[in-house]
């Protein structure tokens, strides 16, 4: 099931695999989406839903599945769910569900802006006696703080079990409700639900694939959670052909979150030191971050953290100075894109580096963002064409229409030429966590340079300028370990001789022992005593020995292809693949065999007495085993242990503090332990399930220039969604300057149903105007039956669609679609709600002419 994604158009190369599954193996492809796209054209089933109603649809599938005959009689499902999910855990009696509180959970603050998750927690057994009396290391500290195991009812009958709570929570998510709220015919919904149900089990698995059609909502994270829950209930996680596949957006964007270009992360998904949390000292940081997770593989957090800081500061990082923790930057709030631009607009941001980004077109409420750029003192734009962001000060629509004068813009703009993808060397990490080495084919021309060259050179210049400054806040830059000059052999065939060594960077990310600089082959060898360096623990193993880069391997087979590139962690392609075997360690079926327990095999290790340990997990396909290799299926974890010691032989989900897949999320998300249908922040209809209209804790910015529409605003009755085409990439910097691509999709167009077009006298291929409280744009009308009106609770709701690739520069020019959108975001990750808001349309150009 492809939902929240237009895979064929946005991931055309990856899409060959679903098609192959269809043509060679009879797989059924289903597309759940408001529009009929090029993906839908290749699928067997299309279930149309109104934008923003995904949780209703998915929740209804959950409801349908857990009440179905098949799920309740085929023993596979209960066996998987009881053993591998937290279905049997008991939740605090203080917990109140959305069914009890008109659409919110217990724990909502007085002002309704934030949740406390205390009432969402597990009921626990008493905490065990600590395994150590005196704490000598960070690990010891964790061992002193192990919580009691959660209480469970494996029969699932106790009303406080996660399972019963879920039943109650989704009870009203029926096929009738789907038809009423999503506008999707009942029969279509049931076809999708039954197809998933009947194609899950011992012998078959189903996959759910998504992308930004799910993430870019004020309930984005919760939508994805629903899919995770559904797949866990269907027993599809950790199994071949199953799982939830997140299609990442650009080349190496998976790598961009792994190595943390995000403000709130350290590489390897550690959290950034945060002045708002209890992170004052390094010990505080370790305890705050690790204690809640110590009973999972994250129990090794101290080793990951120390190795990271050692990588940053090298010799200057010592046990005495807490590995430089005190000098490391700390965040003080939400510094992601949207609030950063709000701060920029109020003059708080002085300077801005824009690399491979074009917020003048790609930013929500683009007029707001362009005006914010004018408040900077300076901005550095690195790109290969003069993007709209680089040119905003001289020819943005605001300047052309006289709203803003260039002489009033004090921003000093530096535009530097950047190298293109074929002119750069390094590893790519794509959607499936796969690292692949990417080779440099040619030098960039003249002064154009790669991002790595720029960043490295900038760092070197700064270090020089900071000289011997004694100030504390200069310590970090001065002591930054910054040594990536290339070996002569690496730059021999190129003109640019000071291009930094991508290999050295990757080796540092991989990790090595500080003393002898030998690469580490596994993260199990990381230490918390400062003897190991590791930029991102999840990547350890990509360079297992000096000179060997597993990302460069290119031996494929027709299945797992373990010798093609390197999948993190530890070349495991299917995460949590312990779940591909049943609780006793046998494969669920011969057909779906992946990882299983071989009780007779020599594990290759010996016990304390020197006797060889017998029994290990095996994967004949060469797949990495996502479990402790020698832990028997019937092993009972130590109540007072941490990490692998605490986890039992059935705790397949080794990164979760309880070793189980979470159907109910007692912590980690700020807007609720279970996904709940909330209407998009701007919607033409009220929430038909609850009194609570939209996500109560969604991030909003009530600042001038960012006006929101009312619910069911009569001035803006039409739903609009923004999305992408195959022919262009994001804001078009990589495509709109190329004649071959510009002529494929030359102009902005609006996809509109014939019903709405007729109502508004809009003619195909002629201009139409789309308007919100934020801005007004014109587009060509593309009148097509691939768009359809939805009947929501008896009322006709129209939807239009806008691909947002165009700006006013380049060879294909049109109005900026994001002039229409608004700053509003998911509260967990501050991702913007770009997939659904409201607008109005009329025939004719922006200025009134046809």
């Amino acid at each position, binding site marked *: 099931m492809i939902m929240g994604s237009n895979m064929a158009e946005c991931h055309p190369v990856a899409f060959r695999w679903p098609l192959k599954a269809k043509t060679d193996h009879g797989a059924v492809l289903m597309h759940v989406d408001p529009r*009929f796209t090029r993906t839908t054209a290749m699928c067997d089933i299309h279930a149309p839903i109104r934008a923003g109603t995904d949780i209703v649809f998915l929740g209804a599938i959950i409801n349908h599945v857990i009440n179905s005959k098949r799920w309740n009689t085929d023993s596979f499902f209960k066996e998987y769910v009881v053993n591998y999910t937290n279905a049997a855990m008991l939740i605090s009696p203080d917990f109140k569900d959305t069914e009890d509180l008109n659409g919110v959970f217990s724990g909502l603050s007085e002002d309704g802006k934030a949740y406390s998750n205390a009432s969402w927690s597990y009921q626990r057994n008493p905490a065990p006696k600590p395994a150590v009396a005196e704490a000598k290391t960070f690990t010891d500290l964790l061992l002193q703080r192990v919580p009691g195991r959660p209480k469970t009812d494996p029969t699932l009958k106790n009303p406080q079990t996660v399972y019963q709570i879920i039943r109650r929570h989704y009870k009203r998510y029926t096929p009738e409700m789907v038809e009423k709220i999503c506008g999707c015919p009942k029969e279509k919904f049931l076809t999708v639900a039954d197809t998933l149900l009947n194609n899950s089990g011992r012998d078959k698995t189903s996959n759910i694939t998504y992308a930004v059609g799910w993430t870019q909502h004020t309930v984005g994270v919760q939508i994805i959670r629903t899919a995770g829950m559904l797949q866990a209930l269907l027993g599809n996680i950790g199994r071949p052909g199953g799982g939830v596949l997140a299609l990442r957006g650009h080349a190496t964007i998976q790598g961009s979150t792994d190595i943390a270009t995000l403000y709130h992360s350290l590489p390897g998904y550690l959290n950034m030191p945060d002045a708002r949390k209890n992170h004052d000292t390094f010990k505080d940081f370790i305890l705050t971050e690790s204690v809640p997770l110590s009973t999972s593989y994250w129990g090794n957090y101290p080793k990951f953290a120390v190795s990271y800081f050692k990588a940053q500061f090298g010799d200057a990082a010592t046990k005495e100075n807490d590995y430089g923790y005190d000098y490391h930057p700390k965040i003080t709030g939400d510094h992601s894109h949207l609030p950063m631009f709000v701060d920029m607009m109020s003059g708080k941001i002085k300077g801005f580096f824009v690399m491979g980004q074009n917020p003048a077109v790609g930013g929500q409420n683009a007029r707001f963002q362009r005006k914010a750029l004018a408040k900077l003192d300076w901005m550095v734009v690195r790109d290969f064409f003069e993007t709209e962001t680089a040119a905003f000060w001289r020819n943005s629509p605001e300047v052309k229409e006289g709203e803003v004068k260039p002489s009033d813009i004090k921003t000093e703009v530096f535009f530097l030429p950047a190298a293109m993808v074929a002119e750069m060397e390094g590893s790519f990490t794509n959607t499936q966590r796969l690292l692949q080495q990417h080779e440099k084919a040619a030098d960039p021309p003249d002064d154009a340079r790669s991002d790595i060259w720029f960043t490295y050179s900038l760092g070197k210049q700064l270090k020089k300028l900071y000289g011997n400054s004694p100030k504390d806040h200069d310590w970090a830059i001065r002591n930054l370990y910054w040594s990536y000059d290339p070996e002569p052999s690496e730059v021999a065939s190129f003109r640019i001789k000071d291009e930094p060594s991508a290999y050295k960077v990757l080796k540092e990310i991989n990790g090595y022992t500080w003393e002898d600089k030998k690469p580490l082959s596994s993260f199990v060898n990381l230490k918390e005593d400062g003897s190991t360096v590791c930029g991102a623990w999840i990547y350890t193993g990509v360079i297992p020995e000096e000179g060997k880069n597993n990302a460069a391997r290119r031996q494929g087979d027709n299945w797992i292809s373990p010798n093609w590139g390197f999948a993190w962690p530890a070349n495991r392609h299917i995460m949590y693949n312990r779940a591909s075997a049943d609780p006793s360690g046998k494969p669920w079926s011969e057909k779906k065999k992946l990882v299983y327990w071989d009780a007779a095999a020599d594990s290759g290790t010996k016990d304390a007495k020197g006797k060889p340990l017998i029994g290990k997990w095996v994967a004949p396909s060469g797949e990495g085993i996502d479990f402790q290799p020698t832990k028997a299926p019937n092993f009972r974890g130590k109540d007072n242990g941490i990490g692998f010691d605490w986890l039992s032989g059935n705790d397949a989900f080794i990164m979760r503090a309880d070793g189980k897949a979470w159907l109910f999320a007692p912590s980690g998300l700020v807007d609720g332990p279970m996904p709940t249908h909330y209407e998009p922040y701007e919607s033409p209809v009220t929430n038909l399930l609850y009194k609570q209209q939209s996500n109560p804790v969604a991030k909003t910015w009530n600042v001038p220039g960012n006006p929101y529409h009312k619910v069911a605003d009569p001035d803006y009755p039409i739903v609009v969604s923004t999305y992408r085409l195959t022919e262009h990439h994001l804001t078009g910097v990589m495509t709109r300057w190329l004649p071959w691509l510009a002529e494929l999709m030359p102009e902005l167009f609006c996809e509109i149903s014939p019903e709405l077009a007729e109502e508004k006298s809009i003619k195909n291929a002629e201009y139409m105007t789309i308007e919100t409280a934020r801005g007004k744009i014109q587009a060509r009308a593309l009148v097509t039956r691939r768009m359809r009106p939805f009947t929501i609770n008896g009322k006709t709701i129209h939807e239009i669609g806008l691909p947002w690739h165009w700006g006013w520069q380049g060879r294909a020019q049109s109005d900026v679609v994001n002039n229409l959108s608004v700053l509003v975001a998911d509260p967990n990750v501050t991702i913007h709600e770009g997939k659904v808001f409201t607008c109005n349309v009329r025939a004719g150009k922006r200025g009134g002419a046809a």
Partner: protein
Amino acid sequence: MAKGMFVDVSICTGCKACQVACKEWNGLEGEPSHFHKVPNVPYPIAFNFTGNSYDNTGSLSATDWRHVRFIEQFNENRSEARWLFSSDSCKHCNDAGCLNACPVKAIVRTDMGNVVVQQDVCIGCKYCIPSCPYGVISFSEKTGTVHKCTLCNDRIHNGLGTACAKACPTGSISFGEVSELKAKADARLVQLKALGHAEANIYGYTEAGGLNVFYLFMDKPSAYGQPEHPVVPQRRLFRSAAITVFTAVAVAVAALISFRERGAKKNEGVKP
């Protein structure tokens, strides 16, 4: 050994990678009629939006040697909903209208069966253009000659396949020996029919003497803008030549009768 391409439209996603790869390999520019100059902008701007589904290319031209078609088949209540895609190009016919029409032997067939235009021979008479039943070969104002897909003549004669087949992400376009491609197409047709696609058909086994670039369509050829039973124009030449000769003879005879020696015969009733 004839080389060609098999286009399986059932796995075409309409991505247009074939169009771009072709332009890239052959160094073709953006189609000139798609761009115009705009004041204060240093390069021509594209303005060729057609409103015809996702197809802004429109047709093959001297710089568009591949053209992806988009065919929306939706009834009013969307109970029948289908969007067909097909990547069109020169078919490299075994009986090629363009080759037959060329008066200077600029259009020739290579040892691999593909039909190419020798750019140094073509005089730009443009007679090949209306002679192609598929509307493929096109004239370039810039070069004064005609252009079309060459089946990547340089690539295939150096051990490589066509650029479009290489770029196609789903394998919809495949390059190889025509006999092997036919076996692949036949198998695929069987597979599709078994799945209930009764309208699926192969186009190009018999048309125009057999097409070296042939298709597996999911609907009638006319749905894809292709002629159902194309007649290569030169197959009609004998008949029209014969009738024209007959007419010439008749005119000659009429002239003879009109202008024969009348001798003593007077023309009655004719005033000067």
